[in-house]
């Protein structure tokens, strides 16, 4: 028996969450004495090696090649994955809980007749329970799937892959010819921001709130992000006011992030904001009000005026990194 992992790609390269999911599945496989099979859809770019998925724990890779699979379509991908899972007599498929994974996993579970457990953050314990954040990170639930077939999604940034010196066996998998007619979604356009790390994949995030007074003051936020190799984010009123693009809004009604380091500048720390960031491993708060609720959720803090603290922090980081 094997654990199947959907290793998702964007423009022919694997996403960070795909490596994390493979690594997670390999830990799960160790527990259950199984092996991991990665399923890859679409054409990969020349710099990407499928054998290298072995480094993250895949024993075998099934590649469903062809340009007709380059663009995501939950229904089409689920149909093909289901054929593979059935043919290989699988009982468990793990996917990243990212943008595509959150569409594909439930679609697949429905078509394959599986139970669905989304956004898990742990391996199963002795009772077979997986941990999952609920109430937007304000609590944790221990959940036990109760079905022969299971689809599980792993919350990004929970497991850090430890690559090993191994290669995977790669095989092509040929879907039925008529599947190409099953595409319902035509992808017209893909726009990704160049340069900066995507917020959902960032291990460091620099985030600004209403305390920064206006969009003209975001220069120092971007500079701080640049010296740290971080992504930028913001609180909801900042996005609502149009100071920053909507996709930067984190919190209960925006994006949920779990970076290693979240630096909150001029953000009060309202419960709805915290809901989107309290899974971060470390939180730094810079706020001029010592009573700001965010300090209670912080690991490190500076009570001070952002317009003075941030430029000094940028200098200190440059010095530490040896950048002048």
């Amino acid at each position, binding site marked *: 028996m094997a654990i199947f992992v959907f290793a998702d790609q964007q423009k022919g390269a694997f996403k960070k969450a795909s490596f994390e999911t493979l690594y997670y599945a390999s830990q799960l496989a160790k527990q259950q004495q199984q092996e991991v099979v990665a399923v890859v859809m679409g054409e990969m770019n020349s710099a990407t090696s499928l054998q290298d998925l072995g480094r993250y724990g895949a024993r075998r890779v099934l590649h469903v090649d062809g340009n007709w699979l380059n663009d995501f379509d939950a229904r089409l991908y689920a149909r093909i994955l289901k054929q593979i899972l059935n043919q290989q007599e699988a009982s468990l498929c793990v996917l990243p809980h990212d943008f595509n994974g959150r*569409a594909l996993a*439930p679609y697949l579970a429905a078509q394959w007749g599986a139970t669905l457990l989304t956004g898990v953050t742990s391996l199963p314990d002795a009772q077979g329970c997986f941990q999952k954040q*609920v109430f*937007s990170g304000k609590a944790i*639930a*221990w959940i036990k799937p109760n079905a022969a077939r299971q689809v599980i999604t792993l919350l990004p940034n929970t497991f850090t892959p430890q690559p090993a010196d191994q290669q995977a066996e790669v095989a092509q998998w040929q879907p039925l010819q008529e599947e190409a007619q099953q595409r319902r979604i035509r992808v017209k356009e893909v*726009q990704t921001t160049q340069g900066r790390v995507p917020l959902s994949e960032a291990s460091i995030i620099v985030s600004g709130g209403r305390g920064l007074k206006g969009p003209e003051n975001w220069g120092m936020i971007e500079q701080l992000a640049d010296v740290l190799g971080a992504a930028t984010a913001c609180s909801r009123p900042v996005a609502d006011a149009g100071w920053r693009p909507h996709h930067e809004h984190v919190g209960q009604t925006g994006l949920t992030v779990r970076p290693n380091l979240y630096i909150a500048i001029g953000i009060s720390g309202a419960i709805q904001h915290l809901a989107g960031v309290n899974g971060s491993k470390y939180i730094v708060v810079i706020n001029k009000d010592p009573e700001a609720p965010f300090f209670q959720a912080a690991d490190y803090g500076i009570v001070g005026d952002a317009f003075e603290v941030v430029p000094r922090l940028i200098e200190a980081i440059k*010095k530490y990194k040896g950048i002048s």
Partner: protein
Amino acid sequence: MKILVCISKTADTTAKIAFTPDQKSFLETGVQFIINPYDEWYALVRAVELKEQYPDTVLHLITVGGADTEPILRKALAIGGDAAFRVDLQPISIEQVAISIAAHVRDQGYDLIFTGKETIDYNGSGVGGYLAGLLDWPFISLATHFSYDGNIAVVEREIEGGRETDEAPLPLVVSCQKGIAEQRIPNMRGIMTAKSKPLQVLEAPQEARQPLLQIDHFALPPKKSGVHLIEPGNEAELVRLLHEEAKVI
């Protein structure tokens, strides 16, 4: 056009999260319940806008829940919608909700189903996709824009570090998030008319009654040990701590 919007009931965003002493269930005392924000602000409002654009549209709302969800449905009806349905079941899993809704959809002839991005209590992010999978309809998740020209839907969705624009035929299931619409406050007329709109209770289908998972227990996350404050002016010390203690830079 005929549209269905899936409405769920959740604890208010500021609710204090606590559990019964055996850690088995959420403590509801003193908690205020609201329409899940993604369902209310985005899915429902966008559907109401489509009805304004195409006045012959029939707009239905559905929830899977006990009688305690009816005030939430009425509130949703006050924002818009012609009729509401409640499938009488207390679900604990994604598939129970999706199977219940799918059973209703099959004989209704909907063209479009909107769900929210996720419920803010269970954070499943699964009902829309599971429902689409049961119906074998195309599904677009995490939509930030939706338009329909009478023939084809154009949907913008969020992806890693950007956006993707998709075209899809109807029938279609879409999960909605911020960007797709702006929050609306129900007006007095909406609240008054909502009282007399039909709300039908449906029996839960047999296949939905047993969850395929079990919630063993809940816990609050471990408390932070307290903030370590650094004097302004001493930013170099913060950098040192982030490097040596937290090991994050």
